[in-house]
Each structure stands twice: as C-alpha cells, then as structure tokens.
C-alpha cells in the first residue's frame, strides 16, 4: 500500500463530485430532510426522540451504500479500472481511497442531520452527543464498505440498485427498530445477530438513555468498525488484475 496514491484517489473522487453538485447536495441533505419528515410524522418530540437515534444511523447507512455501490460499479465497468490495474496502484489503495472520500462525505451528512435533529427538531438524548455522532459516522462508513463489496456482484447498474433492498432492507427490518431483537423467533434473532447494523442500533439505543461507556457499547462499536474493514478487505479480494 502507498498512502500518497490512496490520498490521490480520495482527491480524485472528491473532484469528480465537485463537478456534480446535485449529487453532493442530495447526499449531504437527504438524511436531514428525512429526519425532518420523521419528526412531523410523529408529531411529538418524545416519540421522535425514541425513534430518531436509530434512524440517524439507518438513513446515512442506506444512502452511502447505494451511492458507493453505483460509483464503484461505474469504475469496474468502464476501462479506467483496467487501466489502473496495469499501473502501480495496490487494490487497497483504491478501496481505502474510496472509503476515505465517502467517509468524509458521511461525516458532513451525519453532522448536519444530527445538528438539525438536536436543535430544531428537539431530539433529546441521555448520552453524549459526540458518541451519537461517532456511531452514526461509523455506520455510514459501514454502508460505504458494504457498498464497495456489493458492487463486485453486480454487472449492471440495474443490479446494483437492487442490492440496496437486498443488502440493506433485511438489516433495517431486523435491527431492532420495528421489534425488539430478543422477542423475534430464534432464527430471526440469530440472523439479526450476524447483521452488523443490529450492533450499531444497539449502541445508539444505549446512547439515547445513558452516558455510561460500557464494555457492551465498546464491543458493539468494534463489531461495526470490524465489519466495515472486513467488507473493504473482501472488496479488495474481489478486484482482479487479470480478468477473462
């Protein structure tokens, strides 16, 4: 790996976004708009405060997943990847370059959505705001990493778009947002145990009620971060210099 090539890749991806302002605006503002919508759907600050922290993780997770999988698929299906594979760039330089670029966008996205929720929308949490931000950013990074990985299995953009419901929706349904995980049938409970989003939502639920930093909280954060790194490494393994 070569950090300067990785940073050059990040810079290149951010430059590409600079020429596409509408996409940037959508990425950065969409979670905030959804949070505002959610606030007025519940119509009380108390009900909003119960659901909002988990959704503060779910919205960026889903958006980053879809944006990343389409962008990387575009790189894979155009000849630029083939050209890069003849050059002295390590596969991880490319993938971590992507993760860093999207990670920076995710930080902005989460800061704005959390900022609006905590002020205008009246979200009240028992724990630390910084911990809430950290978990939400980690979660957006997880979405990015899974999106990078998933793009390896799509041949067309139509397929990539449908990976969003396939990879993301089951995690949203089973993460404890709709029904407590320990009350689901054993098989669903087990499935929710192997889905990384469940641990992010557990961590966020903890932060809404308590400011204690417990061993379980740290374990949950490490699981989310570990899954993100694992997805990136698996994504690198699916990139091949030689193709049929």
């Amino acid at each position, binding site marked *: 790996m*070569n950090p*300067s*090539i990785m940073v*050059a*890749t990040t*810079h*290149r991806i951010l*430059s*590409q976004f600079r*020429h*596409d302002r509408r996409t940037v605006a959508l990425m950065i503002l969409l979670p905030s708009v959804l949070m505002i919508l959610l606030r007025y759907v519940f119509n009380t600050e108390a009900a909003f405060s119960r659901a909002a922290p988990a959704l503060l993780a779910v919205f960026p997770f889903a958006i980053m997943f879809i944006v990343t999988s389409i962008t990387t698929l575009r790189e894979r299906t*155009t*000849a*630029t990847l*083939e*050209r*890069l*594979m*003849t*050059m*002295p*760039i390590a596969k991880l330089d490319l993938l971590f370059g992507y993760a860093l670029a999207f990670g920076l966008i995710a930080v902005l996205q989460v800061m704005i959505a959390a900022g609006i929720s905590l002020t205008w929308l009246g979200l009240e949490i028992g724990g630390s705001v910084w911990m809430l931000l950290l978990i939400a950013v980690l979660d957006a990074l997880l979405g990015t990493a899974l999106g990078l990985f998933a793009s390896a299995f799509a041949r067309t953009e139509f397929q990539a778009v449908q990976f969003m419901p396939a990879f993301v929706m089951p995690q949203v349904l089973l993460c404890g947002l709709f029904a407590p995980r320990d009350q689901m049938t054993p098989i669903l409970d087990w499935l929710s145990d192997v889905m990384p989003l469940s641990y992010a939502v557990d961590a966020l639920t903890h932060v809404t009620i308590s400011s204690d930093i417990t061993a379980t909280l740290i374990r949950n954060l490490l699981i989310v971060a570990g899954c993100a790194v694992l997805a990136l490494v698996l994504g690198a393994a699916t990139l091949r*210099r*030689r*193709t*049929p």
Partner: protein
Amino acid sequence: MTNSSAIVVEGLRVRRGRREVLRDVSFAVPRGSVTGLLGPSGCGKTTLMRAIVGVQIVEAGAVTVLGEPAGSPALRNRIGYSTQSPSVYADLTVVENLRYFAAVLRKPASEDGAVRRVIDEVGLSDHADQLVGQLSGGQLSRSSLAVALLGAPELLVLDEPTVGLDPLLRDELWALFRRLADRGVTLLISSHVMDEAARCERLLLMREGQILADDTPLALRSSTGTPDLEQAFLHLVREREALTS
C-alpha cells in the same frame, strides 16, 4: 529470446468460454520500433494487447515484456496502455485526469510539466480545463492516449488510438509515434484500417486468433506480389484458406 526484443510471445492461447480467442500465437517485437497489429474487428487484437499488459487470463503460453513475465509488478510503471474505449474519468477535466494518473505512477503532483507536455503532444492544449465528458469523440480518445504517454514509458501498447480522428490529427499522432520510437520507445499499435499499416516498420496481420504474417510492409507487398497492403492481406487469407480446405 534476445534482449533486443521488447515483447516475446510464445505459444499464447486464450480461451473465452468455449471460443478460443487466441490460437497458438507466437511473435517478437523489436525494441524501439513501431509495430502495427492489423486485422478485422473481432480477430483477437484487444485480447492479445490485454495479455501483453498483463490483465488477461491466459490458458497457455508465455508472454515476456521488457525481459519480465507480462503482468509483473516491476513492469507497472514501464508500460503505457491505452484501451480501445477511452479509459479516463468523464466527470473530471483533462488536467485533473492526468494529475491523478501521474500520482498513481508516483510522479509528484508538482511535476505539472509532464502533464502539460503530454497534453501538448496529443494537441489538447486548448481543452485542458474542459470536462472529458464534454469533449468530442476524437478529443476523448486523445485524452485517453495522453494518460498512456505519462511517465515516459519504455513500451506503449495502444489499442486503436487513431479511430475517428481527422486525417490531419492522425498524421500528427503518427509523427509523434515516430519521434517516440526514435527516442527508443517501443510501440505496438492496433488498427483495423489498412492505410495506417504503411506507417509502421513491422506489421503483424491477424485473423481469427492467429498471426497470418509478421514482416515489414515492403516485404509483405513483394512476397505476395500485390500493390497495396489490403490486397496483401486478402492474398494471405486466401492462401491460408486454400491450405486448410
């Protein structure tokens, strides 16, 4: 083989699905030459070039490039490769594309001189700050060619670099290829247009995954007794068909 060869291909076979795309291909390309890879569309030119730059899964045979097995990490900043479909980012300007690829080749970003030089060489100075996606087809393929010229490679593998260019630009590019070869760079250039063949020192004529001829344009014309290379190609195809039938 010898050190005077930039590319040595021996018994190369490539299979894609059930179809054998390259069938026992062997040849050598001398250093510092302009070699044309000519043949109809679909004859295996691109697959052969992909094998030389080391991105093609091959079934059998050996490809040696600049003394190393094709695809070796040591070759990755010694070869310039331009794919048939333009391999540049449409949502970046010409300069931004080149700066990125220069960084990947570990040429410092401050080395803007190199970026300006290749933009000049492909005649895109007036479009340097334009988005690649807004360029015309010919400009687009020249911006892709410019990337291959970065970092002063010893070998250039160019897949149909002159398609869709007006005759004047085509002439300028061939003059550039000539200058590069005079500096000692080896060029392998594919084309499906026979009138480009006369500009090469050596020709590889391909058809259906096989090399029909490997010679100089002059020798090809005289050995087949034909006035132009199109005729020479037809002569060779008919000769081969008469042998196999």
